[in-house]
């Protein structure tokens, strides 16, 4: 599990950061829906990168913590991972079709509903209990790892990370997920994997 110890209890905790990401994802979907042509391709790339960053942070940081800290945590996390896999499958279909395809809006709608439902389940069944069961220090430490991942997020570019971000975002959507995961692992260290 990845955790950094340099961050302390100041600033938002991990749950707050993740809820903020859910809201940004929600608004990025709206941006893709509203745009066309080159702007849509750009907005879609932003959305893919944000999804990659968010799911990476959850997979490497939040879900392992939830397995240990929540009663029935393994089952709760397994349900979330199944939802994530379903969403990734939809994302691949969407990505294969491409932003200019006629079926893109319908596929995007399927993905949007899947992602928002998944986010809502996390907030209700996972985050709420993380906050109840983990100490403020631990929540802040987890936040540090999420912030490290967030350096690759589109709406909060980190100084010096722009070129890395551009490289990460090139190519198929699922490859972006893999590269973001590697980059996050490298950035924050991987203590027990």
């Amino acid at each position, binding site marked *: 599990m990845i955790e950094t110890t340099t961050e302390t209890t100041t600033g938002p905790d991990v749950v707050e950061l993740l809820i*903020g990401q859910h*809201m*940004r994802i929600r608004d990025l979907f709206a941006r893709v829906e509203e745009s066309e042509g080159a702007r849509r391709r750009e907005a879609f790339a932003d959305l893919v990168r944000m999804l990659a960053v968010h799911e990476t942070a959850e997979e490497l940081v939040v879900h392992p913590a939830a397995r240990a800290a929540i009663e029935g945590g393994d089952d709760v996390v397994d349900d979330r991972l199944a939802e994530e896999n379903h969403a990734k499958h939809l994302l691949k279909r969407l990505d294969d079709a491409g932003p200019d395809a006629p079926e893109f809006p319908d596929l995007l709608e399927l993905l949007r509903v899947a992602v928002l439902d998944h*986010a*809502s389940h996390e*907030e209700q069944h996972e985050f709420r209990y993380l*906050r*109840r069961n983990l100490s403020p220090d631990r929540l802040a430490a987890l936040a540090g790892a999420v912030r490290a991942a967030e350096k690759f997020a589109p709406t909060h570019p980190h100084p010096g990370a722009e070129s890395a971000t551009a490289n990460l975002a090139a190519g198929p959507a699922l490859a972006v997920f893999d590269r973001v995961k590697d980059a996050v692992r490298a950035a924050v260290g991987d203590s027990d994997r």
Partner: protein
Amino acid sequence: MSFNPLEHRGIPLDRQLRNWRELNVDPIDPDHADPYTRCRIITMNGIEVEALMFSHQFARNCADMDVKRQLAEVRYLEQQQQKVVNWLLPGTVSALETTIAYEQVAVDLTAWVARMEPDPYLTQAYQFGVLEDFDHLYRYANLYEMIQHRKAEKIVNGLTEVIPGRPTKYHHRHPADNVRAPYDRTTTAPISKLHALTIMSAEQQTMNFYMNVGPQYMEPIARQLYQEIGLIEEEHVTHYESLVDPGETWWERLVLHEYNECYLYHSFMQTESDRRIKAIWELHLNMELEHLRVACDLLRTHDGREPEEVTGPALPEPVTFEPNKAYLRELLDTQIDLTTLGEGYVRDAHERFERMQEALNGDGPPPSETVIDEHRERFGQDYRLSTEGEHPVEELRAPQPTGTTGGQR
């Protein structure tokens, strides 16, 4: 032209019962639905909840077994209506997001009613109340950005401004000063009775909602803000329910409740932008017409009166959700510093008001101030959505670097 619910037959009661499949409605989409569709849903839920609670109170005060059975039968159907209406709200949004929608209802519904109300004393009551709901919207919007990292403009979609109203800390009046004088049931216009019932129901549902969802939050500032504004909803329910003539008989009140439901479903059927939701309003109207017929028969039997004496000849203009920005800005400009004294309104901070203020706010700032202070601390300024220029009240204008939002006293 105008619709008279007393002249239409609805769906017979024995054909109104819905099965699980029919009750299992798809919710609206939180990001694509018309904000005013969500406002209509929240309004009709409040109306149905009031209908249910009124019917329960009636049954508890009624010795006639036949009437109790009739009330129970209609009430069960109204419970199903409430389930369909409120279950149109999506489960994927937070209680706070729904709260902001509740405040949008309170602002734009109350402003519309104030504009349409013929009785000046009642108009003043709505104008007074709406400036407080307007400020609640602003406080909750700041909380929303703080704990959910999203701007309330995504919810209200620019239809309603989010700027300070009468500062929430000044809403805490002595409870005796929340009791208004009632209209006279024998002389008031029927529309005035419907307005009072509508706004009372909406505020009552808001009160119920806040008293139940407030403790679901873990963030201390959220828990505290729901307590504070929840207590103001108690004041608002007292304020609006006292406008209703207590001399109305139970039968008369039952007719008015059913008639008002017809009025609102009919209004929303005419103004609804979503075809699927419009069909629900139409179905419920056709159910309510029958509930109204039953109530009218009870009125004739037990009160010996014709329903037209209570309701008037036809429905008024449809209740419409629409922006009220200019109207609200005018009220901000002219009525921001009002409070109540007895049954009327004054501009002085009178002794009883000051005592209540000292008791609640004397030992430390109220949560409604803290939420703005904390927001400014974290984001550098308070959250506002101002689409029509600068704030009409100078003291509430530019975000000050530190301290409170409302210096008027």
